[in-house]
């Protein structure tokens, strides 16, 4: 089982080979085979989860030579730690759902579509598990191609503009990162390193000037992918034009590449520069949160609204990550997964009504809850999750982010960002109200059918995750905790002039937030795990946590 990671990553490629031999007219077979491949991939990836040891080390490592020529040595060097573990699982978890959502949505060119989906899965998984910078870059770029075709071929009426914009935006950023990567390699070579191994580069001491340039190049590439204000403009286009499965994958996994890039590469590789730029990035993140929320509020197209809400959510993730403390980064990582689940679910919901009515304009709807009660319930739960209502997954992530950022040098940014939480409640609840409540006066809406069994089956796993992560996030946080602690230590040791809150202060605060009962295996002074565990005792009770941070949800 030593190469289970490779197996997970390349199973979809095997699926592609299988699809190539199937006739293109037997759509049912193509769909079911693809679904089977993604489900098997998910099941195999569960082996990673069960075999994962809760420590800070990279596990399931495979390291074999790949390219060796001239000054460069590239290796097929893969492995995961607590940071990438959940993103890998999220990817394999979302894929069957995305595939299932296309069963009726995509009627034309089914074979090509399924091939794109599977290629995309391999690309995404590969990027999350790469420990060789060059290998990471290859997967990072390869991902672009299937997504480009998915938007361009099966997209809406502006699909070509959106697809090309998506491709070129990402390409510009990543090519500059490539230059930085090569530059970094030569710096490493001067220090005696011999390959692109990420772990070696962590040990490389660079002077601040070099760090700043390299950080800028990396940060630019990742900022486009996140996307951060003001580089976000490709996202609403891509989301609006992409087919449902494309939007789901884009939101759930692809955007995480950007934030993951910061956590895995940009920050630990150039810690001092990261500290220098933290205020700037936090400012952009906060602007992104507020700006995207305001723009989302006035959208007429539900899908565009969800797309802008993505920008806001990822602003929170960035804020948490740049707090450089355990709470902030844990919250950021958790929020990445939450956002994947809740925004993925939102795009599926938009897809459901679009398939029925072929419109996404808010004004075309109203009063749907009478006609589609199941749909209304699911939509409501997902809305709550997206808003961050306690008891749902969104709360845990946002709370940790705000807590972490508040305790860090980014206190003032946090205070402003908190208003974004309120804004998100405003636009999400408002759109929910306009679509689901009111008079069912549009005659076209009066014959709408409620969700069918397949559609409910798509949503159930997501709903389960929403509540599971909202009520009992401990297993998630526990697995990632050692890796995050290591990262924080890495960043802290390297930083000279950063104002990081001493660990002791954090630990002193945490017990006040409600000591868990019946969790003896939890280490003492474990701030990440201790906090949310309180949820298990008091279901959906935000009370213990209301004290340290502003809790906008109480206001609703």
């Amino acid at each position, binding site marked *: 089982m030593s190469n289970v990671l490779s197996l997970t990553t390349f199973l979809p490629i095997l699926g592609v080979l299988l699809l190539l031999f199937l006739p293109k007219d037997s759509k049912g077979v193509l769909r079911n085979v693809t679904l089977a491949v993604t489900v098997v991939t998910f099941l195999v990836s569960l082996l990673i989860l069960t075999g994962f040891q809760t420590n800070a080390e990279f596990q399931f490592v495979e390291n074999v030579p*790949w*390219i*060796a*020529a*001239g*000054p*460069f040595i590239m290796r097929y060097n893969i492995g995961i730690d607590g940071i990438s573990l959940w993103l890998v699982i999220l990817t394999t978890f979302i894929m069957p759902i995305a595939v299932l959502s296309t069963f009726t949505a995509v009627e034309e*060119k089914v074979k*090509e579509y399924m091939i794109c989906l599977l290629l995309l899965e391999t690309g995404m998984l590969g990027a999350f598990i790469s420990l060789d910078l060059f290998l990471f*870059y*290859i997967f990072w*770029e*390869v991902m*672009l*191609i299937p997504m*480009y*075709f998915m938007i*361009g*071929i099966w997209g809406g009426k502006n*699909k*070509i503009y959106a*697809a*090309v914009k998506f*491709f*070129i935006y990402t*390409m*510009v950023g990543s*090519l*500059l990162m*490539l*230059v930085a990567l*090569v*530059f970094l*390699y*030569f710096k490493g070579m001067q220090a005696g390193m011999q390959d692109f191994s990420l772990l070696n580069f962590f040990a490389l001491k660079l002077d601040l000037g070099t760090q700043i340039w390299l950080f800028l190049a990396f940060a630019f590439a990742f900022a486009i992918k996140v996307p951060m204000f003001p580089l976000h403009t490709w996202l609403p286009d891509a989301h609006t034009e992409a087919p449902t499965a494309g939007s789901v994958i884009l939101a759930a996994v692809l955007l995480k590449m950007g934030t993951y890039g910061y956590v895995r590469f940009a920050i630990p590789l150039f810690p001092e520069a990261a500290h220098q730029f933290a205020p700037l990035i936090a400012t952009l993140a906060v602007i992104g949160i507020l700006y995207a929320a305001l723009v989302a509020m006035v959208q007429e197209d539900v899908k565009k609204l969800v797309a802008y809400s993505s920008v806001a959510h990822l602003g929170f993730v960035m804020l948490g990550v740049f707090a450089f403390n355990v709470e902030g980064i844990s919250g950021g990582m958790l929020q990445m997964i939450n956002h994947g689940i809740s925004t993925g679910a939102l795009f599926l919901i938009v897809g459901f009504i679009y398939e029925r009515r072929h419109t996404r304009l808010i004004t075309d709807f109203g009063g749907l809850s009478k006609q589609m009660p199941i749909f209304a319930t699911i939509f409501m739960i997902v809305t709550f999750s997206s808003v961050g209502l306690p008891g749902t997954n969104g709360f845990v992530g946002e709370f940790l982010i705000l807590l972490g950022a508040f305790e860090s040098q980014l206190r003032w940014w946090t205070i402003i960002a908190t208003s974004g939480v309120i804004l998100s409640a405003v636009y999400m609840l408002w759109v929910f109200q306009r679509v689901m409540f009111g008079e069912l006066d549009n005659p076209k809406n009066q014959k709408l059918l409620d969700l069918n069994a397949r559609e409910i089956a798509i949503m159930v796993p997501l709903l389960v995750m929403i509540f599971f992560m909202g009520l009992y996030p401990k297993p998630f946080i526990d697995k990632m905790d050692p890796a995050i602690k290591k990262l924080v230590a890495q960043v802290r040791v390297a930083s000279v002039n950063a104002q990081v809150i001493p660990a002791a202060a954090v630990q002193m605060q945490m017990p006040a937030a409600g000591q868990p009962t019946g969790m003896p295996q939890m280490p003492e002074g474990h701030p990440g795990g201790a906090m949310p565990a309180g949820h298990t005792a008091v279901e959906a009770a935000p009370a213990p946590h209301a004290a340290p941070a502003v809790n906008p949800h109480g206001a609703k």
Partner: protein
Amino acid sequence: MDMILVPVVNMTPILPEIFLSVLAMALLLINVFSPGGNKSYLAYFSFFGIVAAAVLVGAGWGGHIESFGGSVVLDNFATFFKITFLVAAGLTVLISDKYMEREECNHGELYPLILFSVVGMMLMASGTDLMTIFLGLEVMSVALYVLAGFNRANKKSNEAGLKYFLLGAFSTGFMLYGMALIYGATGTTRLYKIAVIVGQMTLPSANIMLVAGMLLMMTGFAFKIAAAPFHMWTPDVYEGAPTPMTAFMSAGPKAAGFAALLRLFLVALPTLQVEWSQVLWVLAVLTMTVGNITALRQDNIKRVLAYSSIAHAGYALVGFAAGNGTGTAGILFYMLSYAFMNIGAFAIIILVAKKGETNGNVSDFAGFGFKRPLLAVVMTIFLFSLAGMPPTAGFIGKFYLFSGAIQKGYIWLAIIGVLNSAASVYYYLRITVYMYMKEPTEDFDWVQVTPSIALALVIAVAGSLIPGIVPSYILQYAQMAVKLM
């Protein structure tokens, strides 16, 4: 003990050239004495001849034989480039047959001319004397002038031939003048001797005759490799020439130009590296930028690839400006990969076009992706390789070229290079947009893949993909080639 008489002239280094010349002459005779009609068998003869020549060339790997008094050398550098030329010629021969028949200019002289121009290229790569290089260049060029104007009935082809000839002759003048000045400054035409004499000069960069000679030669070669601002002939000639010849011209002579230029500058003028490196820096930036920006606005697909071919010369010049092992090996790798991907793309263009080169616009590919899925996937592979997307040979090639510049400290050159590369993505994507994202206006039922084109496509796809996934071997060969020069 008897003296062993060593022959003055060792023919071994030019054995493949002799073989190909004899084959070309034999084919000319066969063509004359065989009645008109189908000339396909000549294509197959040439193809197998080229394969045999490639085997002969490959057998010389690892050796270092000088001959003809040091004016020709057989080394790894020459061998690597000769393989590149033979790949280009072999693929061209395979894609020519169908096209020539369709355009009704299926004259048997085509194949011997291709072979002669390859002989010229091979001499350029082997030449270690200004005279040999010049002779090779002329043998190559004269054959190419004829090939560009080969479709006599077509006005544009005539224009292409004449334009290529006039501008080519003009550039040859520059080159010859440059060579004369270098001879004047150093008193020799042997590259190794030039290096010694220049090395003994106290301040070679102040020797006006030497520097002027270097610059004039660079100008002449810049014409041949289509570097800006000496690129003006390229789009018209590429558009007018018969498509297989365009494919050939974009890959073969460009590689030959780089071969001669590399040997000239790295062997004869390494003492002036600071100077020529700066000039090449500027040339590279100009060439990439002009090529890419003008390509953005083209509608004719041959012109798109013509301008993009200018840009590709610019990428290779980035590696040349770096002048280190990484960059120069990158050029060798890139020229070989470029032969595969570019000729492959032209093969698809030949298939999609109708008689008289109608259907030559990017928009004529509308809906091709779903009418002929396999061919469209193949075209997409070539386009992504040209755009430098992993995992293709084009990416690895560019990676090494730009890395060479970064290693040398030319960070800005690398940044300008990658930004250019990003811009180029736009016009390559545009073709995929038409293939996959526009509704078909035609059913492409005239697109017929002959066995020879199928073979060419298989080779080209393999050559564009495999070195992208497992590039080590070819890169190592390329590095051995530049190391032992």
